[in-house]
């Protein structure tokens, strides 16, 4: 019996020694694979030896191999296991403690390192996320990154490490924010000018004379825009009150009037591209217009044609911003007007 026991104990001890030898050998192999930059081999070694799962050094090497292969989700899982399986008590104390923490809570273990890794990896997952990823996942990565960053600050983590991760998160939030379309109202006031063509018709003879009117005035407008950091879409309308000089284009017909009131309404959708600079916008607008003028008929059997006119056209437009105030100019054409249509003025964003 005594001999039997001795044999059994000897067998158990040699078995343990054998297992320990296997673990140490595999740990060395894992480290060698990392050193040789063949991180995929680390996972194979880990999978072939169940005992390695209970070894924190093996887990660390596995996490590193995932990191090197950009398998950040897997790396996060391993670092979390490292906290839960090997440092849970200390971790709980840190979570529950209120700063300032006593140093022995974090200088006697590797938790600051794991917090940094988890903050960094979750930040990478958040930074690389895109609109095709479920919003809940993206928010989870962001919250996890911010959470572990908080723990890292709590355990007096390296300031540069904290700064780098924080900047990555903030930059991503900024970029995300820039993509989101926000709407706001704006008002504007322009000096505006255009030319009209209308006809003076002799109702008796049916003869038509071309008249050309050049108008200049002021317009007041209101619009709503939807914009992100690169594009702006808007819809606006304006009322214009102008004066015009109108004259005959036929040298044989004497007709001239000046300071004639002309009013118009212009409305339409517009688009600006803001990619050149956040303060400089270049774009187009599709205006639809209605105008009427108070031109008076000469004595006799005359009437006007086109004295009330609907039109549509295009404007090329540029504006730049100083704070909430924009300086804008437009040049284009509204059909069937014979000349160009331009305006220059200022806008204010509410």
């Amino acid at each position, binding site marked *: 019996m005594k001999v039997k026991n001795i044999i059994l104990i000897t067998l158990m001890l040699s078995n343990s020694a054998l297992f320990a030898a296997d673990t140490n050998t595999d740990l060395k192999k894992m480290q060698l694979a990392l050193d040789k930059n063949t991180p995929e081999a680390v996972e194979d070694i880990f999978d072939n030896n169940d005992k390695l799962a209970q070894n924190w050094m093996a887990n660390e090497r596995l996490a590193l191999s995932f990191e090197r292969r950009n398998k950040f989700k897997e790396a996060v899982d391993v670092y979390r296991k490292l906290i839960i399986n090997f440092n849970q008590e200390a971790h709980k104390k840190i979570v529950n403690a209120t700063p300032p923490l006593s140093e022995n809570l974090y200088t006697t273990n590797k938790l600051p390192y794991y917090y940094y890794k988890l903050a960094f990896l979750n930040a990478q997952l958040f930074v690389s996320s895109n609109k095709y990823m479920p919003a809940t996942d993206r928010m989870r990565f962001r919250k996890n990154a911010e959470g572990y960053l908080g723990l890292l600050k709590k355990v007096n983590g390296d300031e540069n490490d904290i700064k780098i991760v924080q900047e990555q998160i903030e930059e991503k939030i900024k970029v995300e924010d820039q993509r989101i379309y926000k709407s706001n109202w704006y008002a504007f006031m322009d000096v505006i000018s255009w*030319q009209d063509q209308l006809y003076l018709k002799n109702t008796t003879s049916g003869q038509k004379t071309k008249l050309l009117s*050049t108008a200049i005035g002021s317009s007041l407008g209101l619009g709503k825009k939807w914009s992100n950091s690169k594009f702006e879409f808007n819809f606006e309308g304006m009322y214009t009150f102008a004066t015009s000089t109108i004259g005959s284009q036929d040298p044989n017909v004497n007709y*001239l009037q000046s300071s004639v009131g002309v009013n118009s309404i212009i409305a339409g959708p517009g688009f600006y591209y803001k990619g050149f600079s956040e303060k400089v916008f270049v774009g187009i607008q599709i205006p639809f217009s209605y105008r009427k003028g108070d031109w008076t008929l000469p004595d006799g059997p005359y009437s006007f044609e086109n004295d009330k006119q609907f039109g549509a056209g295009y404007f090329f437009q540029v504006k730049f911003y100083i704070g909430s105030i924009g300086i804008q100019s437009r*040049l284009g054409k509204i059909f069937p007007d014979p000349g160009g249509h331009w305006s220059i003025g200022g806008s204010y964003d509410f």
Partner: protein
Amino acid sequence: MTKSLLFVTGIFTAFFLTASNEAFAYPQFISHGYNSCITCHYNPFGNGPVNDYGRAVSGTAIAGRDFFDENKPEDLIASETAFFFKQSEQKHVRPFIGYRGLLYKANLGEEGSKTDFIHMQLDANLTVKFGEKDQYIASGTFGYAPIPRALQNTPAGDKMKEYRTREHYVGFRPKPNFGIYFGLMDKPYGIRVVEHTSFSRVAPQLTMDDQAHGMILHYAGESFEGGLDAFVGNLASEKDVRMKGFSGTFEKTVFDHHRLGASVLSQKNDYIKMTSTSIHSRSQISHGTSVLFELGKVDKTPAAANSVKRTEYFSLLQNHIRTTRGVYFLNSVEYYKNSLDRSYRVRFGPGLQYFPFTKLELRADVYNTRNFNQEATSKDRWDLLMQVHAWF
């Protein structure tokens, strides 16, 4: 063969020794952080040849690099901006050749619309500088200068020469912030935009051939820059038409790359006396994008008895938007009014400017000009201008 070589060499030598260079100024490049002209030009108020630094800026900040290998270092691009692509081993002599040609299609869409190609400039320049800090400088430009259209086939135009010098001067800068210059130069006034047909240059008579012999004092402090010019007219022109007088322009930097300025110009010859005043601003909106604004008036009093004094008003608003490196979108709005009639003019001018690589500029502009007159109506005028500008 030897004779031909000597002849060609002689022509080139004469070309360089007798003259100089082209008038181009880009005050809008305050958008790149260059507040003062003297950073890039030998002439402290711009125009004329660019210095070594200006050449490097033109290649590495202004011009695009689409035609270069993506790995080509900026230093190498900068070194190739030198005269005929080769950096000089000496620091005293700097030659420069410039050409500007214009395809001009007037009255677009109208009957009688015609297209012209105008060689606006073909200039050669030689700048010589000496001293430890290049404080002694001499610069001369000579080249082809077409007779202005308004003077073609007129007695005045017939007297004009198509080859002339538009700039030659000697200068001394005892201190980096102060210089004195003597010779034929443009008069410092307002914003010296490159468009010599803009109202802000035509109204005060500061276009491509309006240089005068005189003395210019230039001061450039940390936030203040200014200059005074006392001139006696272009000595190459007839005595009676020489504009004599003085001008001054001053700019104050407010914030980093925003400048406010004011200018005055008083000049007269046997036929007319002119007094011009203007205020202006040059502002960087963002990197590569700027806005220029100038507002001024010119009082013109003819010398002839019974002639009427007139006042001309002008303003300029010009956007210069960098879309990508080397490509700029321009948008100009100009205003001009003459007190003698009840009319005024507004000109809109969107344009595109492309510097594919250093030493080449391509530009296209469309101008819409409208007359406002209470005594007549006239259709808008649309003009197309396409320009090629090369320099070596």
